[in-house]
């Protein structure tokens, strides 16, 4: 090998700590880009593909009970490829012996072997139950711990008695209920098992796939509307319809938005890592000035020097890519796997994503080159005299006759003037601290780059905490929709006064409110169905709900055909405003209602509305009756809520009520906001990554600073500084940098918080939410930055203290 390349090779390997620092700085950025881009690509293709592979129903009709003939008539319709009728009902289940009941949606299949839609994927045990056997969707295991195929499960019958069935298998059902966070987990039985649960052997669900155009929303809508019309003409009520596209997972938009947030942070990390690289290259070039001088002395030209150092940078890049590309690929798949697992779909297997790979290589090569170009260009310009006099002169008076004529930078002048001013007033700063202080500002570009990384790391860290609180604050606001301590749902309407009478007998219950509910269809101006809307009907004066209104007013008891709509409705009708009319099919009749207000809710919960009980009870023709009750208890904590729910459930069953479920308000809310925690965890991981990059920057800087000041440390030693004094000087400098960056991070965290919380809330709630700040992020970062900067200095400081003076000052 030619000697100049030998030198480059050597420079690459010779200082392990420095090489690691550069390589790791590059690798962090390449890794995060790789993870996010890879996960994005994998999810993008697999989410749809795996969803499609389970043959999701394009049409999901929730209907009143119907029989084989009706199903057959649907099957015979053109455009329908496959249709399955199923019966879905709610049942409570528990592991024998354990006290805790959980709710299960049991799905009765006509024929497991002939299953064509919403395919079940076997996981463990049987994937098709026999008569009087049950299999579970894997999500059900979250509530039913340690149940294995073959174990018995206890089911509660409507009359309160308990029956036992064996659980024979676990399956995954990625299609049914995909994207519906509020859905209960599923269990599956054969139709022949229905009588066992006192259920009629009839269907109440239709799952159908269209022959063509499974990804054409318009087309599916037409088919559904046509279907509904015909069914309703035959006197069969369709309670709710849902359509989905074959190749698009219902949560695609949410996942993409979340990945978008992560991508933003990933790009930021690349930025931070590039400033780290620039810093380290700068220091490396400083250490190499003498070598550059020698090379020029013996005939090397600037271009040759430039090329040598560019090759060196490429070498660092190659090493970083070697680490970060495989790791990034793994990380991408890991992230995709985690998300897919959370959202219950499957990936198509590990693979290298070409786009992510290309992106990683490009980032890994280009970013270091750009970051390193400036120091390398400057370094290659050094004159031989300067380069060699660094050693020949061994000091400031390198020309041998005292300093060259220098003009002090304004910043240094101010620093000195400031200490002098204090001195004149009798305030003297210990000189060791002056050294730390002035050293801090000595290499200004390095300081700026270090501050940039550490500040951004800190600002993002703080912002993530703020966003977390913002989300939780919003969740709390959402909680105002669930103010009742317990929701008691019954299967049939009962007289409100009767329910009240019983409820107050349950210990802890204060009062009860009966709500009603109506399902309607939102219509486009041409009277085709746009979507379903669920309208809740609490008493107008109810205190158990306090909505987040963004426009208009809340309902009043005298409102007739007026409703408050959720923001989600605006996605269908962007021009809706309070006072505008909206067409709905209510109870089979097309009516015009008036929008009186718009409220905010979790975006993916679909179309919701509120109208006063006073009016809806007339529409339902159920005066003074109700199926759904809101209960207020004396205590409002989760534990007593759960306990009262349990007591209510038992008490009402014992007295012959047909109870669907009794659930505490906080539990309902928990389910609604579960997905947010995952997001916060991701944000937190990114925050930690940026913090790591920031503190790496500080460690690197302190290492370089100490290295460049070995001579000065030697002087300190020579004039009487012991180990402690040397270490104190170095650590004080690190902490000073840490504190400055903290101050800046506090400032920068504000815009970053706003930006991040806007992006996140748009992703999750599909609408911006009010940003909230918390001191906890600031405090934690303050503590962290102090600890980090102390740690970042300890190693360099200890090395500094260990240097013997002879090494530093003497050459003979």
């Amino acid at each position, binding site marked *: 090998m030619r000697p100049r390349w030998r030198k480059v090779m050597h420079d690459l390997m010779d200082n392990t700590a420095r090489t690691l620092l550069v390589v790791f700085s590059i690798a962090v950025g390449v890794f995060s880009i790789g993870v996010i881009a890879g996960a994005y690509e994998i999810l993008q293709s697999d989410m749809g593909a795996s969803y499609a592979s389970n043959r999701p129903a394009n049409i999901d009709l929730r209907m009143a009970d119907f029989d084989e003939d009706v199903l057959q008539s649907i099957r015979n319709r053109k455009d329908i490829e496959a249709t399955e009728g199923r019966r879905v009902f709610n049942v409570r289940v528990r592991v024998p012996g354990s006290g805790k009941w959980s709710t299960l949606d049991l799905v009765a299949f006509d024929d497991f072997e002939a299953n064509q839609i919403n395919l079940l994927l076997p996981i463990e045990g049987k994937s098709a139950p026999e008569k009087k056997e049950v299999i579970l969707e894997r999500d059900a295991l979250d509530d039913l711990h340690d149940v294995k195929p073959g174990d018995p499960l206890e089911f509660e019958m409507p009359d309160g008695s308990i029956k036992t069935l064996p659980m024979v298998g676990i399956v995954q059902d990625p299609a049914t209920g995909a994207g519906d966070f509020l859905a209960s987990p599923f269990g599956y039985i054969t139709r022949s098992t229905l009588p066992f649960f006192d259920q009629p052997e009839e269907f109440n669900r239709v799952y159908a796939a269209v022959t063509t155009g499974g990804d054409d929303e318009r087309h599916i809508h037409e088919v559904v509307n046509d279907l509904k019309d015909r069914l309703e003409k035959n006197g069969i009520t369709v309670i709710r319809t849902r359509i989905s596209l074959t190749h698009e997972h219902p949560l695609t938009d949410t996942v993409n938005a979340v990945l978008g947030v992560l991508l933003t942070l990933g790009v930021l990390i690349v930025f931070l890592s590039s400033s780290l690289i620039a810093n380290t290259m700068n220091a490396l070039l400083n250490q190499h000035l003498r070598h550059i001088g020698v090379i020029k002395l013996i005939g090397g030209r600037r271009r040759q020097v430039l090329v040598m150092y560019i090759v060196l940078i490429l070498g660092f890049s190659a090493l970083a890519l070697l680490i970060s590309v495989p790791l990034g690929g793994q990380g991408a798949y890991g992230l995709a796997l985690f998300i897919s697992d959370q959202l219950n779909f499957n990936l198509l297997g590990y693979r290298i994503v070409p786009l992510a790979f290309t992106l990683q290589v490009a980032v890994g090569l280009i970013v270091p080159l750009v970051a390193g170009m400036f120091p390398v260009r400057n370094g290659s310009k050094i004159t031989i005299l300067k380069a060699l006099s660094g050693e020949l*002169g*061994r*000091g*400031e*008076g390198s020309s*041998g*006759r*005292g*300093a060259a004529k*220098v003009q*002090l930078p304004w910043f*240094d002048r101010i620093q*000195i003037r400031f*200490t*002098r001013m204090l*001195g004149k007033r*009798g305030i*003297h700063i*210990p*000189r*060791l601290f*002056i*050294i730390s202080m*002035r*050293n801090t500002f*000595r290499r200004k570009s390095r300081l700026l780059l270090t501050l940039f990384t550490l500040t951004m790391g800190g600002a993002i860290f703080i912002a993530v905490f703020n966003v977390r609180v913002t989300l939780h604050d919003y969740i709390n606001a959402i909680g105002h929709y669930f103010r009742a301590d317990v929701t008691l749902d019954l299967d049939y309407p009962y007289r409100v006064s009767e329910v009240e009478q019983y409820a107050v007998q349950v210990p802890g219950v204060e009062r009860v409110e009966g709500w009603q509910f109506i399902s309607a269809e939102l219509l486009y101006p041409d009277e085709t169905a746009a979507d379903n809307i669920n309208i809740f009907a609490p008493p107008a004066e109810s205190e158990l709900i306090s909505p987040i209104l963004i426009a208009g007013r809340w309902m009043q008891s005298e409102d007739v055909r007026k409703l408050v709509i959720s923001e989600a409705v605006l996605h269908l009708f962007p021009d809706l405003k309070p006072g505008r009319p909206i067409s709905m099919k209510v109870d089979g009749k097309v009516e015009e209602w008036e929008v009186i207000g718009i409220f905010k809710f979790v975006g993916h919960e679909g179309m919701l509305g509120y109208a006063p009980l006073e009016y809806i009870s007339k529409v339902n023709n159920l005066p003074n009756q109700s199926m759904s009750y809101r209960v207020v208890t004396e205590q409002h904590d989760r534990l007593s809520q759960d306990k009262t729910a349990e007591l209510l459930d038992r008490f009402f069953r014992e007295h012959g009520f047909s109870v669907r479920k009794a659930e505490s308000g906080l539990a309902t809310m928990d389910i609604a906001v579960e997905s947010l925690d995952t997001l916060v965890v991701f944000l937190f991981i990114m925050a930690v990554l940026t913090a790591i990059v920031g503190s790496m920057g500080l460690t690197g800087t302190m290492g370089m600073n100490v290295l460049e000041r070995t*001579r*000065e440390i*030697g*002087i*300190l*030693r*020579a*004039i*009487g*500084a*012991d*180990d*402690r*004094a040397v270490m104190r000087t170095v650590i004080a400098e690190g902490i000073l940098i840490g504190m400055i960056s903290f101050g800046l991070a506090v400032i920068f965290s504000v815009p970053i918080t706003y930006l991040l919380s806007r992006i996140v809330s748009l992703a999750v709630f599909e609408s911006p939410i009010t940003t909230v700040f918390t001191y906890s992020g600031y405090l934690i970062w303050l503590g962290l930055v102090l600890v980090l900067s102390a740690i970042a200095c300890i190693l360099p400081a200890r090395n500094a*203290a260990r240097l*013997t*003076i*002879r090494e530093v*000052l*003497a050459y*003979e």
Partner: protein
Amino acid sequence: MDSNHRPMIEMQEVVKTFKNAAGEFTALRGVNLCIEPGEFISIVGKSGSGKSTLLNMITGIDHPSKGQVVIGGKDIYTGVTESQRSRWRGRNLGIVFQFFQLMPMLTLVENVMLPMDLAEMYDFDERPERARGLLTLVGLEKYVNKLPVLVSAGQQQSAAIARALACDPPLLVADEPTGNLDSKSANSIMDLFEEQSRRGKTIVMVTHDPSLTERTSRTLVISDGLLVKDSRADLDQDKGKRKVS
């Protein structure tokens, strides 16, 4: 022994061997030396003769491979850590280097205060006054608040001498203090040393310029790691004899 008459520096059989990949190199091959308080010593020798190594043995900057160095009655190597030696040095001797070695980020007066801070000598509020006084002594009263880069080499060296005097040590050690100065500046630096010698400081100076030896009270010549000539050898011997008798 009467402590008033104990020597300032006593070196016994001091050997220093450097090891590197190329093998061993013995820089000092058994040096014996006794310097009395108040002497102004010049150590001369060619480059490579071991004179700087010898000086490093006195300042505690390096440590001997063999032998003993006692300064002001204290064995500075046996059972003393590097850190403790630094502290001792700060309080007991002042060093002047060929390349001045002022802290570049501190003004001259701050540079002079620094050893007092490190040694925790003099009251905190007294230090600025004392530093100013020392700078006046070396003729730098106009430059107290200047950074080292803003003054000439000669002035830097004067400031370095003021710094060496900060804690009022009995012993000053200088390594080629005029080696990087033009002849005029070199002269004024020598004047400063002479003045300190008159005030009773013990001064040990290494130089390769034989012309400077005329201004010192005693000259030691070192060659290839051994003291080969001592201008006071006869005198010392006489003294020794007198002491014995």
